[in-house]
């Protein structure tokens, strides 16, 4: 019996185990087919019967938008980890640690004394699940998705972050992985990818990523580990790692 796939469950983030890469291939092919089906390009149906690949949760993105260049200080948390981020608009933030905890939460403060706009959009798959905005001095925006998250979790440790940037808000594909799992995603630059609890929280385990430009010009990437940028790279297809 063919696996059930729906566009709503479009597995933009996909989990891979090295021992089951063939399953990954099936899921990846399914992703391609879903892109096709979703756009009505090549008919409908599950023509290749990709097997029992389970649906994955939709990609969740915290997108900071508003007046370009507006600085902010954000705290993002799920039930496992939290992260503090200082950045500027625009920025997309993705937590890559599937299966994602069902509770995710953000609070961000604008860091200027003016009427510039700061908004946070929480995107689940292709839908904006929640949006919050402020125009005020040091105004606050908040948001959450999933079930109630009573309190913010302790800071991620180790804290691995990929920061993807290029000049033209370009689109990129990526695989980020540790020694046991890998995640496929696609986003728009600039994006910060937070890799939660890599290698079962080992401080010395390897974390790496492979990034490929789709549009917008060559990529520029930084990989930071526990608050320090440990390596940087750039180009059309980029591999980057720590440990």
């Amino acid at each position, binding site marked *: 019996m063919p696996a059930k796939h729906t566009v709503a469950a479009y597995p933009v983030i996909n989990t891979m185990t090295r021992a089951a*890469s*063939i399953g*990954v*291939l099936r899921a*990846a092919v399914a*992703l*391609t087919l879903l*892109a096709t089906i979703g*756009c009505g390009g090549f008919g409908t149906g599950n023509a290749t019967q990709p097997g029992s690949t389970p649906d994955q949760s939709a*990609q969740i*993105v915290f997108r900071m*938008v*508003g007046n*370009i*260049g507006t*600085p902010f*200080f954000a705290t993002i948390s799920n039930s496992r980890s939290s992260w503090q981020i*200082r950045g*500027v608009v625009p920025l*997309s933030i993705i937590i890559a640690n599937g299966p994602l905890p069902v509770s995710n939460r*953000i*609070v961000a403060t604008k860091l200027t*004394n*003016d*009427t510039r*706009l700061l908004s946070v*959009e929480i*995107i689940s798959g*292709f839908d*904006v*699940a929640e*949006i*919050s*905005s402020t125009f005020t001095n*040091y105004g*606050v925006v*908040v*948001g*959450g998705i999933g079930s*109630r*998250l*009573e*309190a*913010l979790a302790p800071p991620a440790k180790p804290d691995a972050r990929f*920061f993807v*940037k*290029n000049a033209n*808000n370009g*689109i990129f594909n990526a*695989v980020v*992985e540790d020694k046991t799992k*890998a995640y496929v995603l696609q*986003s*728009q630059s*600039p994006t910060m990818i937070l890799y939660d609890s890599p290698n079962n929280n080992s401080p010395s385990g390897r974390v790496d990523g492979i990034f*490929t430009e789709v549009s*917008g010009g060559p990529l520029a990437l*930084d990989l930071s580990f526990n608050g320090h*940028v440990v390596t*940087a790279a750039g180009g059309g297809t980029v591999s980057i790692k720590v440990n």
Partner: protein
Amino acid sequence: MKQLSSRWVITILLVPVLLVFSILIAGLNKLPPAEASGGKGLVQVAFTGIVTTMPNQNFQSVSLNVMGVRFNESSDTTISDADPGWQTVAVSPGASAGSIFPSLSFGGNFGPNGNAVGVGSARTEMQIDVAQLQNNLAVFNIGKINAITYKQVELLLDPTNPGTVTPVCGSGTSTGEGCIPYPVQLAGGSSPRFPFDGGLLTVGRNATKIFPLAISVQVGASPATSSDQVVLTTNICPVITGTTTPPCTTFTAPNVAAVAAVVTGSIKGANNSAVVNAQLPGTGTIVSSATVDSTAAHNFTMVLPAGTYDFVAGSGPNHTIDAWSSVPVPQASPMVFTVKNTSTRPLSGTVADACTGKEISGATIQVYGPPTHIGVGGIAEDCSTAGTCPSDCDKFLSGLPPAGCVIIASSSTSDRGVYPFSPSGAGRNAFSTLPLKTLIGGVLPTTTTNYGLMGTASGFNGELLNLKDRSGILKCDGSGYKDNACSFSLQHGTLQVTADAGAPVSSTINVMLNAEDQGTFNGEGVQMFTIPAGQQVAANVPILVPIQGTPFTAQTPAAGAAADETGASLARAPTTTPTSTGTPVVIGGAATYDLFASVQDVFNKGPQKFSGHTIAVVSGAAAPATSCATVVVSDHLTPLTCVGHGSVSGAIAKTDQNTLLAISKAVTGGTPVFISSSLLPQTVGSISQNFAVCEPVDTYTISHYEAQPTGTPVLISASDPVPLASPTTIPNTAKNPCFGICSTGDTSTCLLCQPSTPLPPIP
């Protein structure tokens, strides 16, 4: 089973994925031949609005989530969302008003209209507060669409999440909690459309059209429970000043002509990619933008709220930049900017913490340049004859760049503290093409221009550098960095404050700590901390703040200050000696700070903007006197008690674009601490309500301030102390579901906030 590496999988996967996307993108960008032959033109869309509520209803905000504005050459309002005739002006990727991101150039998109959704990352939306649009105008975006005549416009709202309303406590007949956002449901179930057979909008090839759109929102019944939706009836009408004005039958559109201005003009010497930005004076905040047309004159048109603005016109590499300072609009005659060919250079650098050497991400870097025109008596006068303009912007005798200098470029630092980082984009960024010269009287001078360069970051003292041409290379003398690189090493001190909840907390609470200049609502720093369950105190919470110095008077580096490229040893002792030549000039911080702490509460599943815990305040904490110093604040932030929401509504009799509403809390033995400030809707005439305050139950003072964008806010009047009504406690069975702002999960009782007596009008 064959083992495949994930890299290999991705490599082979990319081929079909890219193939699919390339087909999609190619298909979407392909225009019908008839339309393509007519070319494209630009439309600048702006919003104005009106909100209607039922009797005794008061709302803290009424927001719509706008995906775009789209046009169709058919006047049939029943046509499909998928009709290929729709042409969309989408929200820019950054969702900022005024920025130029022609919607069809937002690469790699697909979606209902072919241009509203970024692949794999959903669409960007702009949340607009309709109340703030009253008698006001907000620029939405510019879009490039087919150059034809359109007969229909649609305000494209998010179909699944079209907006939110935040009622005050007990609004109307509401028995739901107040001061929390409620989802809305659109009456009729779809985004509003407006047809006009007479021809709604005709877009000319390579020309720019202005399209102000009035939005009317009628708020339905208040929520009966805390899980209700609120019905919004939304209508739109175009506000067009052309010869044929479509009839607006559903509501009376606001008189946008009284508050908006259409600015026209041209840029002499420009190329087809030239841009004019209108900015709030002295801030670099772009309110509206326009690109020139492709005629020899390079004309432009833009709409923006009536007021005073800085204008910056540029034409990319190897061109001068023409900046006009503090010019009121509308002007009686077209604005004619001039640019000429000259050498341009890139500008870059780093920003670091002077105490640790660590990079500072999210810092703001601004370039101040001399204007060629300045507003005098309502008229833009040529600086070559007016004699009131600064010729250079690196004289910091006042502690800031000279009055009249214009921010001609603004950028930020990346995660590595490197600028320029944002705005992203390959063009229209003076950091990549800063001209060495500025025109004087339309003539290119023999001397190069001296610029002012300012670096700022929350929690740090700002710093100024002079930026000069040194043999064809831009340098910042005295920066302390190797070869006088234009990099910053920002000073700061640290306050340590202890927060005391007043009693052990039953569950973990997360608290936002803010520092601001004493007696003002000028924020300086922010920090988040936690009080774990069972504990009462968070001791010595650190927060970075600027070191003290006479505000905005210059300070010079200490003699012999060591320097290195990391900035690790660039901490400087403060002085108060102004200087016209030595840089960097450190912008002094306040002598004392106010601190306030606000618990980040959750209602049902959602985190909330408005806390249900008492906001703890400390007034007049002494600022660190020297760089890298730590001051322990003797007063504690206490209590942080669950008290529930409270609200009060009222009116400030006359408001304008500079009116601010500030909320403060008294401190025993100290000055009041401001806990929030906000803009007010621009209401006209006598009204009973134009603001609604939501805060934790406590006693507050509500003040009316007037502030020019770059000036110090001036107190106009203040209310008497206002005690907010306390909530009632309802049993879990009284409402379904029963949630309270301080509830932790499913509790037997919860708080339901209550309305306070409306305030008498505040002058």
